[in-house]
């Protein structure tokens, strides 16, 4: 069986038929890879992730997932749709959108209940996730009482509980403190080490190297400008600068101010 999970060929998508969001996208994602999608605001990252999760479908071009073309018709088939939802989990950018149940526990269990997963198995996974993410004290609370970091962890738990083969995350560390960011990175790396495919969109170049072995850079024209090994892409400062991903950075050393590109992957720089 092929190791290809997703294959997109010449995909175009626009909102309301007039605001382009994806333009001529060609992309192949292999099993057990860690892929980061980076790009400036509004470059099409979130739209791409929603398409990979079968929430929107291309205006033209094809999207293949697990060897099957996906479109409205294939998702009308309940057994295909249920099977796809078991295999692909999506963590939304705004956790308030994802946490719609009255309590944290109900939110985490929403997916397995809809997918009619085995109860005993689900409870075992719940216990494991609660321990890993430290959610024990939050289970009976309402999502509106949680901090952003806690909400994000619950949103991740509500996705991981179905034990998907593919985990898609839309800016999972945006607005989080360093400790919570670290925790989330560790969880993603652990899931990948168990053979899961992890696809993440982010602006945060600090974390890209850790959460990806392949990086795709979106340009402002809604096209993927380049896809390649993260070690190569992150060194290509002109490419990152051209797409608003690094900036000129001024700071002080030993009483004098100087300016250089804010180049995250290498933590040391010459002066």
């Amino acid at each position: 069986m092929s190791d290809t999970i997703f294959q997109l060929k010449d995909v175009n998508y626009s909102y309301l038929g007039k605001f382009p969001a994806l333009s001529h996208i060609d992309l192949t994602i292999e099993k057990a890879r860690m892929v980061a999608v980076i790009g400036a605001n509004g470059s099409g990252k979130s739209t791409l992730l929603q398409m990979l999760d079968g929430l929107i479908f291309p205006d033209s071009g094809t999207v293949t997932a697990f060897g099957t073309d996906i479109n409205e018709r294939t998702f009308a088939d309940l057994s295909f749709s249920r099977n796809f939802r078991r295999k692909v989990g999506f963590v939304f950018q705004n956790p308030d959108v994802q946490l719609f149940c009255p309590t944290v526990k109900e939110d985490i269990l929403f997916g397995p209940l809809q997918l009619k997963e085995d109860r005993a198995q689900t409870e075992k996974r719940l216990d494991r996730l609660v321990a890993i993410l430290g959610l024990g004290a939050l289970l009976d609370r309402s999502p509106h009482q949680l901090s952003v970091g806690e909400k994000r962890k619950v949103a991740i738990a509500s996705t991981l509980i179905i034990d998907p083969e593919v985990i898609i995350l839309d800016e999972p560390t945006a607005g989080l403190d360093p400790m919570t960011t670290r925790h989330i990175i560790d969880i993603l790396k652990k899931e990948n080490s168990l053979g899961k495919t992890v696809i993440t969109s982010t602006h945060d170049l600090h974390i890209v190297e850790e959460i990806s072995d392949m990086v795709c850079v979106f340009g402002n024209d809604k096209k993927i400008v380049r896809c390649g090994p993260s070690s190569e892409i992150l060194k290509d400062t002109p490419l990152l600068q051209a797409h608003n991903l690094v900036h000129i950075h001024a700071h002080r050393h030993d009483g004098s101010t100087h300016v250089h590109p804010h180049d995250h992957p290498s933590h040391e720089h010459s002066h």
Partner: protein
Amino acid sequence: MAFTIGNNFIERSITGAIAFLKESVFTDEYASRDGLMQSIDPRMKLVTSGMLLLTALLTKNIAVVLYIYSVSLIFTYLSKINIGFFLKRTWVFIPLFSLFIAVPALFNIFTPGEAIANFNIFGLHLIVTRPGLSGALLFVMRVITSVSIVVLLSITTRHSETLKALRLFKVPQIFVMIFGMCYRYIYLLIEAVENTYLAIRSRVGRQVHYKKGQQVVAWSMASLWQRSYRMNEEVYSAMLSRGYAGEPVVFNDFKTKPWDWMWLLLIIIICVIGVRFI
């Protein structure tokens, strides 16, 4: 003409409504205390509250209503709820309105009978009758007792649990889920209103012409509507993404304990005493 930021009708209404909603609907401070009512299974609590309500509503004997009201106050105390807070919460609004409604029933025009007091207002000779007074008292006491029982149930039970307990009465899952989601997102929208209001306040300074003030309020209403509309689409996507296929399956983990059955027995005894012996 201008209105002053910090002291105008709209501002006071917005902040007052937000504070009231947050305090009365969204706080589960009392529900998380370790008291009598909090220890009972929500389904059992719903059923027994219904029994107390029916006893108070079906009787024509004011002593029975007073007895049920006293029982509700004892339960309030045993549930570690401040009695002053509880009385304030239950006597304001509905019982006071019912008092006004009941006033005409006091007089001989509506309830003829034995006179106990009479007086003249603007040349109109009014007589307060004994059946009028007892009827009005029964009505007001019924209202206050019913409101007390419902308030006691609602503040000692987490909102989500009350909703889930509704399933006992065969309320369809989709309704339980929609109610739950409304509760969840009303809070989020209240926060959006609060933040929008703060953002406006941080930019407009101290005084705004009233016309501009009206525009600002209209804009923020429109923006809130737009935000809630967008969120509605996103939430639906999030539900689809996790396998929702049109018929929700709601999590149910209630388990009754021996204490819940003892509670049921206790309430039956209280109601029987009320109906048979008073």
